[in-house]
């Protein structure tokens, strides 16, 4: 959850990259992702150039690059495992490519979300004809993610206080069903909260979609940004 909070804070920054339209950033990120994931294994120079491109963009967006890199490295345990297996079965080039590609793609995705507030990104996706029920559900999910997680943390803390040190001694099945009970209570609280939310929203005139403070606007600068980002990505993809 701390991760989501940090990203949320970053995404509200002010920089030339933050100011770009969400659709432009989504398009640029997709082109970069496709370019990275179709680059042939062993093209280390290309991967280095992609990394330079991403880091330059992060610097332009005035984001803390070290913190960003640490977050992006969260994908490494998974990909490093597979990379190790691949190396072991005699394909070092592919093994390195697995690690490089997954790291770069994770970094690119992180850069997208660290410069675009989630709601703007969802509006861009809605413009791309993602069905509205899915957009609505995702918006509610993001809005209540922090609330319900906080509730789960409170419940966890309360259980620790009540249980003290006895958790280690109590029977396995008792501990298991206690966890099941906690899940049930969290579920009940979420359900009741959802009922309350809907009533409150109706009272405030909710009519099936969230209204926007500012319309999406695709300016010439956005077009130039997409063109630049796409041509650099594609250039690296084919030139190296």
């Amino acid at each position, binding site marked *: 959850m701390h991760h*989501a909070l940090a990203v949320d804070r970053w995404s509200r920054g002010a920089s030339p990259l933050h100011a770009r339209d969400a659709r432009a950033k989504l398009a640029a990120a*997709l082109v970069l*992702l496709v370019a990275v*994931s179709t680059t042939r294994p062993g093209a280390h120079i290309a991967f280095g150039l992609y990394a330079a491109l991403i880091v330059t963009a992060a610097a332009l967006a005035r984001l803390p690059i070290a913190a960003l890199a640490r977050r*992006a490295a*969260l994908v490494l345990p998974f*990909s490093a495992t*597979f990379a190790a*297996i*691949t190396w072991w*079965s005699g*394909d070092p080039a592919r093994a390195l*490519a*697995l690690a*490089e*590609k*997954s790291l770069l*793609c*994770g970094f690119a*995705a*992180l850069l997208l979300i660290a410069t675009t507030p*989630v709601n703007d*990104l969802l509006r861009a996706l809605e413009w*791309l*004809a993602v*069905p*509205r*029920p*899915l957009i*609505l*559900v*995702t*918006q*509610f*999910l*993001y809005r*209540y*993610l922090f*609330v*319900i*997680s906080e*509730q*789960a943390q409170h419940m966890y803390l309360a259980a620790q206080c009540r249980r003290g040190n006895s958790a280690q001694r109590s029977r396995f099945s008792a501990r*298991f*069903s206690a*966890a*099941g009970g906690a*899940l*049930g209570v*969290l*579920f*009940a609280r*979420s*359900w009741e909260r*959802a009922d309350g*939310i*809907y009533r409150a*929203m109706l009272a405030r005139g909710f*009519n*099936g979609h969230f209204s926007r403070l500012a319309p999406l606007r695709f300016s010439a600068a956005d077009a130039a940004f997409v063109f630049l980002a796409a041509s650099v990505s594609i250039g690296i993809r084919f030139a190296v």
Partner: protein
Amino acid sequence: MHIPDGFLSPPVWVTFDALAVPAIGVMARRAHRDVEDRQIPLLGVMGAFVFAAQMINFPVGAGTSGHLVGGALLAIVLGPWAAALVMTAILAMQAFLFQDGGILALGTNICNMAIVGVFAGYLPYFLWGRGSSRAGRSASIFAGGALSVLVSAALALSQLLISGVPMPRRLLLISMAVFLASALIEGAITLAAIRAIERLNPLWVRPPAERSSPAVAWGVAAAMILGAALAVAGVLLASTSPDGIEHILATHGVIEPSWVRRALASLAGISGAFAVCVMVGKMLARRQRAVIPTAKQMRAGSA
């Protein structure tokens, strides 16, 4: 198992993204038919609940702990279509916000976990959940949780194998054993959670859909066939050709060996697939634009 970007070969992720787009359209329509208007916030909150529920640790022995994955639980509580929609929202959130699963691989992860996983999790409950015997019903819930994890994991594994990620036989067996263990854990957690929820309010758990309901039957059948076909294809490909689909395409001369031509072809294919996705999506979106009634429509309806 969330597949990150960079693992799947382009033919694989393009195929699954293209499959996921119309599937999401269908699931949004069906979900909206199944749940009432007031439940749209509920679906979002349930997604947040599944996220938060991962903080509750279940002891699974040997000092380790497991947590809920949630596909089967959501299917039993919300019905399979709405559950698939919520899982899709969860996966999108995980991919964009937490870099848990790739963005290009999102369609693949949605097919594995939100579509096939949810419907596989619903299948036992759909078949045997309506019986009066408590043990039989419990068994069906347990089997649902286990099956959803097992099928999603097997699908992900076969997609990796098709993409040419090498997997020695011994390791394959080990990962199968790990999947089986996590499937049993998910079954036990799903059962414990459903029991606790029913104790609090029995109305929160939906009875299984009517067996005559063609939509659910079709969804289950389609998911099962897709899953079985993929698993078989993955195993066959893995056993015949260690380099996966690209190797087969290259040896049969489908793709020119020159890498520039190959890259051009794949880029053209990707943009073509994307254009098709957008067109299909736009069409579906137009057909369902009136799914959520606006205030004006609601007033007109009540007048």
